[in-house]
């Protein structure tokens, strides 16, 4: 396997990971419609991952990769509406708090996986003197770290109340 193939594999992995995170963030935003800060910030952060997906597709092209639909498929409207309605129906119940903590944990882990991929790409870019790839990683990786810090902060704030009130 050549050098380039390793980078391509990682690009492809990360492209998948950012797509997955964008979908997950959007789903969490919809599922927790009645936790308003979660809803709004998760929606904003999904935007970051969708941008990363587009940038990675472009970078992939430069590496001879076709990473498919660069837009990051948005969730179908009907499903989104159903999730939001479900959130409103249980808005007065405490149990969604536990679900929210689990969702935040999943988001954090997904972002951590992406963060490590960005780290790998940045290292490889330096080794191969690929300035474009290094610039991409330098631009995007900080946002991934911010996604992780946000999920961590929300878990820190919410878990004392959620875990002691059931």
């Amino acid at each position: 396997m050549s050098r380039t193939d390793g980078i391509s594999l990682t690009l492809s992995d990360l492209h998948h990971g950012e797509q997955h995170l964008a979908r997950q963030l959007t789903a969490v935003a919809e599922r927790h419609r009645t936790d308003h800060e979660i809803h709004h910030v998760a929606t904003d952060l999904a935007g970051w991952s969708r941008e990363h997906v587009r940038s990675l597709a472009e970078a992939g092209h430069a590496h001879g990769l076709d990473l498919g639909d660069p837009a990051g498929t948005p969730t179908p409207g009907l499903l989104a509406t159903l999730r939001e309605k479900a959130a409103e129906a249980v808005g007065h119940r405490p149990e969604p708090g536990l679900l929210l903590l689990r969702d935040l944990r999943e988001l954090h882990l997904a972002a951590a996986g992406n963060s490590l991929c960005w780290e790998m790409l940045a290292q490889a870019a330096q080794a191969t003197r690929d300035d474009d790839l290094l610039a991409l990683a330098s631009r995007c990786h900080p946002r991934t770290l911010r996604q992780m810090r946000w999920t961590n902060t929300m878990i820190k704030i919410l878990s004392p109340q959620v875990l002691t009130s059931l």
Partner: protein
Amino acid sequence: MDASVDRIAWPWGSRTPYGRHEPWPVRVDTYLEAGVEPARVQRWVQTASILHSDGDAMDIAVLDGRMVGVRGRAGDRVNRGRLGPKDLFAWQANASPDRLTTPLIRQDGRLVACDWDTALERITSRTRELLADRGPGSIGFYTTGQLFLEEYYTLAVLARAGIGTHHLDGNTRLCTATAAEALKETFGCDGQPGSYDDIDHADVIALFGHNIAETQPVQWMRILDRLEGTDPPRLVCVDPRPTKVARRAAVHLAPRVGTNVALLDALLHEIIRTDRVDHDYLAAHTVGFDELASRVKECTPEWAARICDVPAARIGEAAEIIGTADRLLSTVLQGVYQSHQATAAAVQINNLHLLRGMLGRPGAGVLQMNGQPTAQNTRECGADGDLPGFRNWQNDSHVADLARVWNVEPRTIPHYAPPTHAMQLFRYAEQGSIRMLWISGTNPAVSLPELARIRSILEQDRLFVVVQDLFLTETAQLADVVLPAATWGEKTGTFTNADRTVHLSDKAVEPPGEARPDLDIFLAYAARMDFRDKDGAPLITWHDPESAFEAWKRCSAGRPCDYTGITYDKLRGASGIQWPCHEGAPDGTARLYTDGISWAHPDVCESYGKDLVTGAADDVSEYRSLNPDGKAVIKAAGYLPPHEIPTEEYPFQLATGRTLYHFHTRTKTARAPQLDAAAPDVWVEASVSDAALLGLGEGDLVEVSTPRGALRGRLRVTGIRPGLLFVPFHYGYWDTKAGHGPDGDTPPRAANETTVTDWDPVSKQPLFKTAAAGLRLLERADGEHAPAPTTTASAPARAGTVPATTGGTAALATEATEATEAGEAGEVVEAGGDGREEGAV
């Protein structure tokens, strides 16, 4: 004779022009009820205004045990004798016949009168049950920006160390949270850098989303007096409404709401491009400039013009004025704080001052304003989402220090996460994890966003709601226990205005019936709960306002808001004093950061900072590596589009806000006849072009709707920016048939029926300025007019088309100035001097 002025028709009174660097002349405003001559006043009792954050010092006139009027205090640094319309007239609400005079408890679904013992017993027994069954996290407190310092401090101690709950916040979350957060982000710590005296010295005053003419009318008088004097300042105004400030501005920018960061980034871009940067100041006192410079590199005026919908040339002119200022004063309020990207935008205004080195000198300062009169104390005392004395909840040594002051174990004080903010508190109540909510001095059933949701939370059977207030407000009507509170003029205490000036407010008259001071209520509850310190002694060791103040001084010692040099005696008879005031600064401190940045070091700062987009907290190691020497932090922020943007169904943007004549939910101001008549009901403002497009005119009954709900009011066509609607948020339902919310007979009229539940992730301040809305005609006007003032930003676009707002003889107040009274001024000012000064005995 003194000059008499109708202060409803002429809210800012007569001019006393003065030149740059000169002292602001005295003008003493007095209003006494009809038939009371000054000579008949038996006592003048010292206080300051509790109807806005300005802290206008005044004396209450007392005759036969009742209030009969007010007079500005000539010797006070804040107002030099002047009073605004609310100061002059709203005191009348104290004697309103519908004051609460006994506690009420809910029995069989109805609120019935009871004695204090019964009401307090019900509260303490519910507290004990919840503590036993569900723990301290099931109890929350939601307080206000209108109590006194001593009351907030007592509440903070009983909640944080007595109950041990994290859930204590103020409605200051709605008005001043972003001011505090922006100061923490930039300077590491809360604390107003500037001083009102800076108005005397500035050559440029930039007002960002701050309609000072209506929110702090006395400081607007000061600006007007400078505009009439020699070497007047130039004003830069950022406001989408045609405010009085906008009309006097050298440059008025009326951006699309929700785009403040884009506009500010363009201003910063221009300052850097033209190199109006104080490089020595930057090097000595800041970190982070390079990142800002790269962030705003592409943010040209042309770029911002497309986003903000203001001409690029105007942005350039504003940048030119700010960039060439000799002494720049900036003030900031709700147009920034209640808008999208609130903290990010407020921080960019701090950045303008850091770049230009405009801090800590006369005329060079920032005023991140407050809305409410005692919001500053909510922040200092830890009755909002902070620890007392601006201590850092993430710093164990700060928590240990607080535990030492309170003589409790550090783990008694919840500090594993930031104190819970108001919006989260209501979310916990909605979810059912908070089961008791004690609301003091505020009316969330009118003032919080999305009222249908708030009512549904407060109406839950499982939530035990205590309301402590003056009147049976919309919120009190939903309570399980209602406690009648004494207010301003009926109790003693101190409070602090937006420029750190501490005033004493003495008791002038007895409260009505069995109403008690808020301090007494908290102390009675604490005594019944028998809160103890770690040695088994009572946790709360004070028993009256002055002993509470002394306790607070011990908590504030060595902190940025150091009160140790202030006593009640020092405040009596004198001007208010600006904190910090201690041995080293016995007369107080006019400006912070005169000699560098003092509270940003990692070991002393109140906050390690947050991500300006996500609100995620940084930790100490990140902060230490960013800012090891404790300089000011220049934080860059990019523009993000608002979450709710206009659609076909909701083509307008909606901003809610205030009017000059009312305060909050009108509990006091609607009970003062002059103020009520000036703005008796809700209205809707739309622009000339939008009204023409929809075929609407002055006085038409219209409906404003959003995905949350709708309200109806009569239309006022003004010079507001096209595409934007404005609705005042003061109006609720207590004076309608329905009582606490709309029903079949009472159409919705509260602005917050329509507002969105969304907040700035950094300051947690709700967004009241960025909703999408629809507008439609319900009924053509048949000679009616919108009940909106003509004297303010609500003035009709075409003058003379509606009757002018006047107050008539009932609103005549006297003005005594040195100029008009020549040598007699002193005599006139002391016209009521037959009565003794309260402080003199």
